[in-house]
């Protein structure tokens, strides 16, 4: 089969179009900043951004004006504070107003679950006694057909594109993930198109040597991008740590649109691609983020026949 390997530029150019819904997921880990920055650089507009926990990346994308809407459950700079750009968009319409579609964490997980398994909806025990359904008509209540009473449901979601960062994948997109696997599997299966971004491209034999570790099969993958440190300043379990200074610095940078724009000019528009971003960041800073090894113990699948 022909390889699905593309540069980030070509993957975004081919698979992310104006007006579409885009989910770049990962719960505090695996957040593919490289993909989001490329979307900004290519000037996409009118996107509906989907993400359980909009983080610095979505703050940057929204500040850059790529989005008309946001589907989410929690807005925060994790462990630091507010996402000032998103607040500015919501509270003041700067740089443009932003339509919000709001859930709780489990609610958005449930939408991914329904989408991933082609169910029309998914039930969950939440939202009773909350005002969230009153501001989001997609959150509904049905009666348990077995008589236990009402229960909340949310509808399936099918992002046009999901962008999922992983530790390693082969050229077809068969991908191993470990650590905080979050909702990466569910969002990939829910989406109509999938871009897998990997720290390393490995031979198919590496994938086949541990099939329980494969959360995303190449079958659902449209493009594979090799982008080491593509998640900086977020982290990838076993590969690099979160760059906490960047999270702290963003709190100051993002408080004004002008300083935000200057940052975007320097770190997104001012570099051609992730390689230039990393070169600008410097090897020393990356070096400090590498953890010491902590290997998983051996597992034997057995050779039969």
């Amino acid at each position, binding site marked *: 089969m022909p390889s699905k390997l593309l540069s980030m530029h070509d993957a975004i150019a081919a698979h992310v179009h104006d007006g579409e819904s885009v989910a770049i997921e990962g*719960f*505090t*880990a695996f957040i593919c900043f490289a993909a989001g920055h490329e979307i900004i650089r290519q000037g996409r507009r009118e996107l509906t951004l989907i993400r*359980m*926990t909009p983080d610095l990346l979505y703050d940057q994308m929204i500040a850059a004006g790529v989005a008309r809407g946001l589907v*989410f*459950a*929690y*807005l*925060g700079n*994790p*462990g630091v504070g*507010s996402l000032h750009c*998103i*607040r500015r968009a*919501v*509270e003041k319409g700067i740089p443009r107003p932003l339509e919000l579609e*709001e*859930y*709780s*964490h*489990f*609610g958005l*997980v449930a939408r*991914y*679950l329904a989408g991933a398994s082609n169910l029309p909806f998914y039930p*969950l*025990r*939440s*939202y*009773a*006694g*909350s*005002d*969230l359904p009153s*501001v989001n008509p997609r959150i509904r209540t049905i009666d348990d057909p077995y008589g*236990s*009473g*009402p229960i909340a449901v949310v509808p399936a979601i099918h992002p046009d594109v999901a962008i999922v960062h992983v530790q390693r994948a082969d050229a077809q997109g068969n991908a191993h993930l*470990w*650590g*905080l*696997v*979050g*909702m990466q*599997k*569910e969002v990939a299966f829910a989406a109509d198109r999938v871009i897998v971004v990997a720290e390393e491209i490995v031979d198919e034999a590496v994938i086949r040597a541990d099939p329980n570790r494969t959360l995303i099969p190449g079958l659902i993958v449209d493009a594979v991008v090799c982008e080491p440190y593509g998640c900086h300043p977020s*982290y990838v*379990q076993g590969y690099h*740590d*979160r760059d*906490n200074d960047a999270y702290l610095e963003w709190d100051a940078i993002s408080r004004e649109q002008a300083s935000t724009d200057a940052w975007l000019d320097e770190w997104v528009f001012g570099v051609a691609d992730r390689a230039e971003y990393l070169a600008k960041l410097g090897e020393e800073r990356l070096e400090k983020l590498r*953890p010491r090894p*902590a290997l998983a113990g051996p597992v034997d699948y057995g050779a039969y026949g």
Partner: protein
Amino acid sequence: MTPNTYSPSEMMIVVAARQLAGARTVFVGVGLPNSACNLARYTVAPELELIYEAGVYGARPARLPLSIGDPSLVTGALAAVSMADLFGLYLQRGLVDVALLGGAQIDRFGNLNTTVVGDYASPKVRLPGSGGACEIATNARSVLMIMRLSKRAFVRKLDFQTSPGHLTGGDARARLGLPGGGPQTVITDKALFDFANPQREMQLIECYPGISPADVQAEVGWPLRMAEIVGETPAPSAEELRLIREELDPQGLYR
């Protein structure tokens, strides 16, 4: 900070930790709650296992986590699972004994607002939103609230009800079919509250050393219900302070 004095944060951590006596599982938030849960493991709840909504059961972080998705929570944990499993199989299945929650606003029945100050459509302040709080408040067997006392936070009426506490009080939770037990304690920087009355209304049960009930009432936006006897919360012990300062947070990030 000398051995005989302590900060309000240290007091909150100590009081929260003591509330975890006997708990088997706790749903942890980052920051103060994280320190409280780890302190409890060293003191009143040696069998306590930490559950993080990021998808971790039985975390043993080698450092103080920077966020609820810190990589140190995964390495060495008993289990790392998808968020679908964490919320479905652990939380919704009823395996969380105690959850720690906070918010921008709380009302007298322990309902929480983490969504907006002002109107939802055009908010004065856009807050983070629910995150997992709505389902945590719904499903955890009991909930401890950790919030600093202030009239802006302890309000007569929430601007938005994100997560259910005891709703309108009494048996309102049970009537709505909520599986978990709801708020049990509110831990602040000045006093301790519970809901141990038929109305399930927040009541002052203990003031911290040097604080009077009047001091507390001054920070609460409704006429506060008082327990029959309002006690004084014991100050942190030397050992509790040593654990916080030497073992749990030697860099002083959350004190």
